[in-house]
């Protein structure tokens, strides 16, 4: 168990800077998720923590020990790889025992630890099998088992679920959560999937282009994204962004844009008055767009008329891809409602959950 501290970590290949000034403290026993699009530097950062990549500048501490020049085997970490990296010529038992064997742990201790880990991951029946005789989910569990038996201070996981199908991914997500609860160890988990990040992380680091965008709990990221990138990355389907003007008339403040006219909350109105610029970007999550007909909303509350172009019925919810003015938006409606292509739907925005971003630097103007 250990705290992991990254102080101004930077990684560059020649002139190509991959990770820029990464400054973060991961608390002891915390489940930290690095999330971001491909090439954002999340895996490189994890690999620097593992010792598989050199750190160009900055300091890395695991516990109190400076780890920059310590070899991977001496960092007291274990890693689960995207492709599992199970040694194909070894049995499940041998794969799990390999790390302990390298550390000259007595054979009977190895046997006990492997059997305990195997039992907890339902691998006991598979111990004599080779990886090629296992399903994707079983291989994934062996990869986790191999890490678990080592009892490391820090678990590193590099997109461990990305090779599994959607259903199995859901199951394995729960298993990883359980594992973290049981082991109470620091875990650092890399993914490009925001659902995994939201469901697993105690805290999430959102990365883009080698720069930390925001570090926060899943719900804070969802409710209070610090900029347009985080707002668009976290949440599924993604937030709608609509160019808007701040209009103040007869003591009332509202946002107006192509095909809509959005009322704002009192708090937001206060903040909008203080914003110097008049042109902004309105952010509305699909869940915060409602059908005025269903809500029996007052005419004054209607933000605009959406023209339904595609209907996606997911069961509990129905996603409407609509045109609002000349802009494309997505709204998430309750599953029971029937909609038809071409239908005009009067829309109401949830004024308590609107986000306003600067068109200049894309930061959230409401924070």
């Amino acid at each position: 168990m250990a705290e992991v501290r990254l102080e101004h970590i930077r990684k560059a290949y020649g002139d190509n800077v991959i990770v820029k000034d990464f400054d973060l403290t991961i608390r002891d026993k915390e489940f930290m998720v690095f999330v971001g699009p491909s090439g954002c530097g999340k895996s490189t950062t994890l690999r620097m923590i593992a010792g598989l990549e050199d750190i160009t500048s900055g300091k890395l501490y695991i516990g109190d020990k400076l780890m920059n020049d310590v070899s991977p085997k001496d960092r007291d970490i274990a890693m689960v790889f995207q492709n599992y990296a199970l040694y194909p010529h070894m049995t499940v038992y041998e794969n799990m025992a390999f790390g302990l064997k390298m550390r000259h742990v007595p054979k009977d201790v190895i046997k006990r630890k492997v059997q305990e880990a195997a039992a907890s991951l339902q691998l006991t029946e598979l111990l004599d099998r080779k990886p090629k005789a296992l399903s994707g989910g079983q291989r994934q569990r062996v990869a986790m088992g191999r890490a678990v038996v080592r009892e490391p201070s820090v678990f590193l996981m590099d997109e461990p679920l990305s090779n599994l199908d959607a259903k199995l991914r859901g199951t394995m997500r729960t298993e990883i959560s359980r594992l973290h609860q049981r082991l109470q160890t620091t875990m650092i988990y890399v993914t490009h999937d925001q659902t995994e990040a939201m469901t697993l992380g105690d805290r999430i680091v959102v990365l883009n282009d080698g720069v930390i965008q925001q570090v926060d709990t899943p719900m804070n990221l969802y409710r209070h994204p610090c900029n347009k990138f985080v707002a668009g990355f976290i949440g599924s389907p993604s937030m709608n962004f609509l160019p808007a003007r701040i209009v103040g008339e007869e003591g009332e403040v509202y946002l107006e844009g192509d095909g809509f006219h959005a009322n704002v909350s009192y708090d937001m109105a206060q903040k909008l008055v203080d914003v110097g610029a008049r042109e902004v970007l309105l952010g509305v999550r699909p869940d915060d767009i409602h059908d005025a007909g269903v809500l029996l909303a007052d005419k004054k509350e209607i933000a605009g008329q959406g023209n339904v172009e595609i209907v996606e019925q997911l069961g509990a919810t129905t996603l409407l891809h609509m045109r609002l003015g000349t802009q494309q938006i997505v709204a998430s409606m309750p599953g029971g409602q029937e909609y038809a292509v071409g239908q005009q739907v009067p829309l109401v925005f949830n004024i308590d959950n609107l986000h306003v971003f600067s068109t200049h630097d894309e930061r959230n103007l409401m924070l």
Partner: protein
Amino acid sequence: MLKLTRRRQDYAWGYLMVAPTVIGVLILNIYPLLKSCYLSFTQSTGFGHAHFIGLANYVRMMHDPDVWQALVNTLIYTAVSVVIGVFLSLVVAVLLNQHIRGRGIYRTIYFLPVVSAPAAVAMVWRWLYNADAGLFNSLLQSVGLPAVHWLTDPHTALFAIIIVGIWSMVGYNMVLLLAGLQEIPRSYYEAAEIDGAGPVRQFFSITLPMISPTLFFVVVTSIIGGLQVFDFIFMMIEPMNTAMEYTQSLVYLFYKQSFMMGDRSYGAAIVMLLLVITLVITAVQMKLQKKWVHYND
């Protein structure tokens, strides 16, 4: 008009596509093999005629010291050249799989012997081995050591040939092994590094098992190649060379009997002996591979 069903049409096309290869193998491999087998039970009577004599050629072979010596020579050549040659190929492949400067140049240099004409290669090596003006003896004499009659001394001739054989095989095997090495995903080494395995352990626990299918192929083909050694002996050892008895291989003996002495039937019997030895050794290897070759799929 004959109408073929779809299924039959597919078969017809399939057979048509494999026909050139099958016909080639039948004419160039199977027929000569059967013909040699038949010849080995006959005695040539000249003008292309032969009469059946049963196992007489084989009985003669059993009592022929030249055959036994050639068999010993062939086995020594094969064992030494394969063990050292494959080991060196693996070492070179591992080294050239690292990120070193001028890697492409080194790979080309090691592969050059494979694309060089054996006759030209033999000429160069003959000069290197020359007792009076050769490079090796010049080097030995420059440090005060006596000259060695590399290709005429029965004690050194076979090993001189083995060195040339190894030199010519390393490049080809190195390329095959290099291809095998490059197939090993980097993540295995990274996982092993985190698990605490050092470079030597990584070689034995990851590289060797992962490359074993390629290594198996290299060993099998090298042994078959070794058992068939002919060209370097033919080009570097003169027929009257005093070391000939201790260097000639079974294939060379076959050549001598068939084309220099004109006894094709006896030559065929020698080839059949080599064929049986090759089959037995290969079969044993196929059986043993379960113990050390790891196939991923």
